[in-house]
């Protein structure tokens, strides 16, 4: 039997009206403009952009304002918005080696070509809550003559010595998870796309677990690069790949020990993280999980949660996860009624038997 239940329209309309008012906050205070969110809460914006899988700081800022600062809700809004837009094409693979860097550190080499550039980092701050921060603008940051020297990849330095597994040179067409379901077992390009838009908290916890012994890794940050990369697109209108502008990126090369196997000599292996925006924690966590998921490639036993491809990839997406968890609060009156009747019947049988 199907019982249609109607009602609640007025309650819903009033709830949404209150949501509007609650979102606005105290009308005596100025409304926060999306430009302010994009300019001052940049890392929140970047997280939404990465998890919403849509690189546009303005849109992510609007989504954050609309979501009252709930970043998962904001990512959801961004994902929903992107479905309304046509896809014009694919970019050429980003040349991250040529990134315009605002930060670049390596934990493996002190002196490396291109140097260590700290950039606008939280590292080495004392994490003391600054109760006076709202008073006045800071002085302009110091400047020094820029060094135009190239900053080659650390992984390349090791690869030249044969101590680092090289990436397979390939131009194979990658699967696109916005157009096709996730294949399991998943080829690495599908895994990377999944992780790139995965929930930062989930990636962080899994990455952390590999450091604590669940996955047998001893990682070093070979290199962390934060900056801007030009995007090029090949399209029939232009007789060359056209440069459409720059996007903010965070990239992490994680270097891991590998003891060698029958097929491969002992060497370092790598995990890779790449993210829209300047969120470096997310790129680092992604790189740890990417390496853990390469267990089969290196003949490692898949024993830890971070190595369980199906588990990791099917639970990384916070838009999917929040949809399924949060639907539980919507009316389940009929389902629950049947459970209730079942339970009563079982109890009655048991009481009759006693």
């Amino acid at each position, binding site marked *: 039997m199907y019982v249609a239940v109607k009602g609640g329209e007025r309650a819903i309309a009033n709830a949404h009206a209150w949501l509007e008012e609650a979102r606005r906050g105290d009308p005596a205070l100025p409304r926060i403009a999306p430009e302010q969110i994009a300019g001052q809460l940049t890392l929140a914006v970047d997280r939404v952009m990465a998890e919403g899988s849509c690189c546009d700081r303005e849109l992510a800022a609007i989504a954050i304002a609309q979501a009252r600062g709930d970043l998962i809700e904001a990512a959801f809004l961004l994902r929903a918005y992107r479905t309304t837009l046509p896809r014009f094409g694919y970019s050429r693979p980003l040349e991250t080696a040529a990134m315009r860097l605002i930060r670049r550190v390596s934990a493996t080499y002190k002196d490396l070509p291109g140097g260590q550039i700290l950039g606008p980092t939280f590292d080495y701050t004392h994490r003391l809550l600054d109760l006076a921060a709202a008073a006045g603008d800071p002085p302009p940051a110091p400047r020094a003559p820029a060094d135009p020297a190239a900053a080659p990849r650390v992984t390349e330095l090791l690869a030249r010595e044969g101590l680092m597994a090289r*990436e397979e040179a390939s131009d194979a067409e*990658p699967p696109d998870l916005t157009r096709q379901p996730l294949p399991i077992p998943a080829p690495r390009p599908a895994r990377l796309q999944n992780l790139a838009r995965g929930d930062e908290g989930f990636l962080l916890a899994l990455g952390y677990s590999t450091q604590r012994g669940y996955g047998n890794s001893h990682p070093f940050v070979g290199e962390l690069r934060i900056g801007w990369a030009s995007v090029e697109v090949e399209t029939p209108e232009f007789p060359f790949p056209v440069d459409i502008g720059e996007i903010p990126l965070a990239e992490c090369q994680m270097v891991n020990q590998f003891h060698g196997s029958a097929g491969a000599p002992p060497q370092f292996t790598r995990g890779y993280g790449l993210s829209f925006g300047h969120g470096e924690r997310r790129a680092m966590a992604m790189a740890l999980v990417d390496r853990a998921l390469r267990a089969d490639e290196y003949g490692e036993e898949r024993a830890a949660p971070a190595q369980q491809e199906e588990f990791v990839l099917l639970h990384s997406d916070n838009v999917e996860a929040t949809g399924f968890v949060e639907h539980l609060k919507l009316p389940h009156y009929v389902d629950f009624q049947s459970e209730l009747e079942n339970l009563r019947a079982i109890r009655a049988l048991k009481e009759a038997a006693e």
Partner: protein
Amino acid sequence: MTDQTAENAARKAWLAVLARASAEEIEARLAEAPPLPPHSLLRGPEIGLVMVRGRAGGDGAPFNLGEMTVARCSVVLEGGAVGHALRAGRDRRAAELSAVLDAALQDPRLRPALEAAVIAPLAEAQAARRAAEAERAAATRVEFLSMVQIR
């Protein structure tokens, strides 16, 4: 052949500069330039998405990183020259202006004045912004001191 290569390089460069300029910035430069020929729209201006690709490990197999918003436009000038624009973001007005400029810049009679009044100043402003960021970054470059103790 070399002419075509140089022509493409010049066009690629002005498109990159226009892609990094807002509609307001382009309009401000156009106010100082000779008027653009009238145009009609062939397509757009319209917004959409481009799927951005990376490579595993930075240099391995391609993968789809995620999408970015883009605006595109195609125009034809009076006289038949066609121009296109494809640029990051959702600025339709900037896409249309870029497409008109792309068409006009391909006309050797119009190019010198537009290069001087629009493209060169925009490129200069963009280079200055990049330099300002590079100089701040350079100020955070670490100079290591080795502390060696010899007894």
